[in-house]
């Protein structure tokens, strides 16, 4: 706990300094959601994000391959017809579920693509917060073993 608190303090100190120097926006400095990124299970992260148990929605598309040739780089994109204000990518079987989250200001499309690491074949969740309510899309991505040395 102490350790955690200390590193939390360190974070705020660094961010505070940079925020005051105008290097990053204040919103950003306040919000690296340590607790959410350290959440082990999907439910942990849902709880911390305030997502409860999000419902599946056909309005969300998770753009990802069925098979990843390499778990070190798995392309994942979320796009939705909902008026999204926040997007999150979760990997059920990773040591910590939350991979990344994005805040979408007005004028920005509800569309983000990035690349994530996956330790093994797992369900991947695309979460969308729109009008204060969370919903999601789920897709299984198979991670295959590579050539020669594996």
């Amino acid at each position, binding site marked *: 706990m102490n350790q955690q608190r200390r590193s939390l303090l360190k974070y705020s100190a660094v961010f505070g300094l940079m925020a005051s120097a105008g290097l990053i926006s204040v919103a950003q400095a306040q919000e690296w959601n340590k607790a959410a990124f350290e959440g082990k299970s999907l439910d942990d992260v849902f709880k911390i994000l305030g997502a409860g148990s999000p419902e599946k929605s056909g309005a969300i598309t998770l*753009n*990802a*391959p*069925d*098979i*990843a*040739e*390499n778990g*070190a*780089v798995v*392309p994942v994109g979320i796009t939705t017809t909902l008026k999204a204000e926040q997007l999150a990518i979760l990997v059920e079987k990773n040591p910590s579920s939350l991979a990344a989250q994005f805040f979408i200001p007005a004028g920005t499309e509800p569309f983000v693509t990035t*690349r994530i690491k996956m330790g093994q074949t797992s369900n991947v969740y695309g979460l969308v917060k729109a009008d204060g309510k969370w919903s999601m899309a789920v897709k299984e991505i198979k991670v*295959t*073993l*590579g*050539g*020669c*040395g594996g």
Partner: protein
Amino acid sequence: MQRKLTLGLASGVLAALLMVSSSVSAQKSATEDIAKYREMIADGNPSELYEAAGEELWKKPAGPKNATLEKCDLGLGPGVVKGAAAQLPRYFKDTNKVQDLESRLMTCMQKLQGRDPQEMVDAPFQKGPKKDMEAIVAYVVTLSKGDKIKVSTNHPKEKEMYELGKRAFFFQGGPMDFSCASCHAEDGKRIRLQDLPNITTQKGAALGWGYWPAYRVSSGQFWTMQQRLNDCFRQQRFPFPIYGSDLTMALSMYMAKNANGGTVETPGLKR
């Protein structure tokens, strides 16, 4: 009654068809899915990050002579970078040797900047002077992207290197009896799901030679051709191939010459 029967028959046939196609297509669809994966990651090749750093290093004075590499002769005359990588390896009169890109860059670093090539040879990949080399290679090969591979064996030394390379390609050794040819001398072969180009053919050689150097997603590193060859030998369970050795020149000559007429697609993006 009759209608029911037809329907029943039709659905039976359909079910049978589905069963057959699902088992036959299992592997095909895996290959297609991998193709989709590769397509998705092709957009945004991190090689670009190395290329930018390499351009800076090319133009930055360095070494005991505090000189840049801008006068380096890669075969098309001092300072000509565009298209140079597409014609390497080649014979160089000043060194009286057949050289690939990395060997030639070592010559330039020695002659122009006064750096000791042995330091480069000895450095581990991705570290120290090799890190600089890798970035410079990324910069140079990008300036041949889209060109046709055009390697000569007109000079007797080039011809000799090609023949030695061909023999080295089939040289078996190590505790697994592997040679390059064990995996790269037949069409349509794979290790796991990775396609193996048949380097004895023009088409296969172009697929291999034409796409390296590349950013490798499995290691998150930009790999030069020397590192690619090095890791092939590691997987072959051979001893460590010496950086810039004639052995590596010969194998490169064999691959590049076989690939002639293909397109330079470097830097590639690989698993």
